[in-house]
């Protein structure tokens, strides 16, 4: 008898609470996911798709829904740490399927080899390639995110990724790495 009672009580309580929650979820329904937006703001926005999602926003949404946070290769350790801070979890190491080298690069088209097939233009997620059919293409370096999505589709392999050169403008005050050339 008591067992039955217990089951009834627990069951009815659960039902009641379930009803309340169900009602609340309808009543207090909110569009959009602020967490996904926060994650999106932390991602590097290269739109490279290396995480397996078509762009940064879809990945951010996936992360908000429990996807692993260590799949952003261009962001590297820094981004993982930031997302981990946001989500309140320990930062895992970068997914081993990805290169650990995330030094910034920019795509460059070797002009004499370009046949003007427009395949790279279709691949570029940020419209950073200029050109039209049978005309030589070129990359707007300032717009390029270095996602290297254009490298694969090129039938003549005329796109190379060039690491961004160190200049006095973006130099990081690393005094230990100055090439000291003492002449005489």
């Amino acid at each position, binding site marked *: 008898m*008591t067992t039955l*009672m*217990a089951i009834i*009580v*627990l069951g009815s*309580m*659960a039902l009641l*609470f379930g009803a*309340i*929650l169900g009602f*609340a*979820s309808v*009543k*207090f*329904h*909110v569009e959009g996911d*602020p*967490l996904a937006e*926060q994650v999106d703001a932390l991602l590097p926005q290269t739109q490279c798709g290396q995480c397996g999602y078509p762009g940064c926003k879809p990945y951010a949404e996936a992360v908000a829904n429990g996807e692993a946070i260590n799949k952003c290769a261009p962001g590297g350790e820094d981004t993982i740490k930031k997302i981990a*801070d*946001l*989500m*309140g979890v320990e930062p895992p190491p970068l997914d081993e399927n990805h290169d650990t080298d995330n030094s910034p690069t920019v795509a460059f088209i070797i002009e004499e080899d370009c046949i003007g097939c427009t395949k790279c233009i279709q691949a570029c997620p940020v419209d950073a390639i200029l050109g039209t059919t049978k005309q030589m293409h070129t990359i707007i370096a300032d717009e390029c995110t270095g996602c290297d999505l254009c490298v694969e589709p090129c039938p003549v392999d005329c796109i190379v990724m060039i690491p961004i050169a160190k200049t006095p403008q973006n130099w990081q005050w690393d005094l230990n790495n100055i090439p000291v050339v003492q002449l005489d």
Partner: protein
Amino acid sequence: MTDYLLLLVGTVLVNNFVLVKFLGLCPFMGVSSRTETAIGMSFATTFVMTIASLLSYIVNTYILVPLGLEYLTTMMFILVIAVVVQFTEMVVHKTSANLYRLLGIFLPLITTNCAVLGVALLNIYEQHNFLESIVYGFGAAVGFSLVLIMFSAMREKLANADIPKPFKGSAIAMITAGLMSLAFMGFTGLVKL
């Protein structure tokens, strides 16, 4: 009235849930790396703890005890706490986007905070009445918030300090927590109930 005040002070300082009773240690270590998040966690926990102790008192007194189902308290309380947390999350989400952004991630974490269940269960063992239960729950939450925020402030400084290598990270945090616990033991005997 004095009784309630003494109960409050007693729970906040003397019988501090984190440093004396050692409950709720995972959020204490987990979300104390930055003051901002610690404050968010504190608010969320305070709210949930107070409501949960209130509700669990009601459930216990008016449903479980009359039906002689005291052995179901733990199960029941977990249910209550989970619902309160979920409900709070939804309400906060709807009413204040800003607060939700601050608390959002921590709210689900509270479900697994043992201090919340601890408060509900201790209320029964100590045979608190309705008001006492609320004061006890609130006091426990304030105590939790107090040490969490203090601890996070310390950890923020520690993160940038020159700590010997073997002590970096969690190690120094543990030591700090231990020292804090020692300090809180100094309150023993402050309140006699």
